[in-house]
């Protein structure tokens, strides 16, 4: 194959063990707890929680559970392009909705 990048990314050498993933899981459960806690405080907090903690949780799942951490740059680019596109769709849509 021609690209060095892709060549190098043929699965990074070491595989992570059980421990890493269990730690991540604990973090995810704790974050869920925080989210619930924030939503109990007030609506504003709940929305802030939605905007900050949820992407963080999703990021953890992507990065560790879905092995993005251990992959080469290509997959990261693929995910970022997708999320970027969705974000631009949102922005352009709201240029209509929010300014009517």
């Amino acid at each position, binding site marked *: 194959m021609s690209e060095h990048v892709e060549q190098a990314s043929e699965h990074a050498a070491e595989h992570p063990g059980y421990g890493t993933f269990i730690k991540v899981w604990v973090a995810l459960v704790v974050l869920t707890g925080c989210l619930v806690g924030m*939503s109990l405080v007030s609506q504003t907090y709940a929305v802030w929680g939605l905007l900050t903690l949820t992407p963080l*949780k999703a990021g953890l799942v992507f990065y560790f559970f879905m092995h993005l951490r251990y992959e080469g740059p290509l997959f990261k680019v693929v995910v970022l392009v997708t999320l970027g596109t969705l974000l631009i769709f949102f922005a352009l849509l709201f240029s209509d909705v929010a300014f009517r």
Partner: protein
Amino acid sequence: MSGHLHRDDFGSRLGMWLFLVTEMVLFGGLFIAYSYMRYRYPGEFHHGGSELNVTLGVINTVVLLTSSLTVVLAIVAVQRAEKRRAMTFLGTTLVLGLTFLVIKSFEWGAKFHHGLYPNSPHLATLPPGEQVFFGLYFTMTGLHGLHVVAGLSVLGVMLWWVATDRIRQDRYIHLENGGLYWHLVDVIWIFLLPLFYLAA
């Protein structure tokens, strides 16, 4: 023909990720619809959200997170050639996935019982924004539910393949791809929880 091609695990994973891209955009479309409607009807969405059962939603989140963990642990087990463990982990995932569906069905059942379902006479009496809220609620959780069912079927096959050694230490790309799908289903639920139950 395909027999002549060399095995390309990276290519398979790339294909899977590209498929996940389409899934992300698919739900992305629904998230766009949600935010559009929520912007139009903030009050109604708040009221609608308060009618959902937060406890069940949170329990389900933990259930799904744990099932995600067990899938990823199953992969570690396969990598270490610990077949029994791998099967236990996958089995746990299947049980947790089913639990999720059961809880979900109770939740939906309760809503139906209260006359809150699309086209119901009771729903028609609610303000328009709330009708939209429940429309979105049933669509999004329903579609997610379908993905859970699909994911469970895939993982069921994986369990079978681990048992019959089609998936083993030197060849576990299918399990990895199945796992990727399951995690994505999990990620989508991570977003659905606050959107409907917590921060609506």
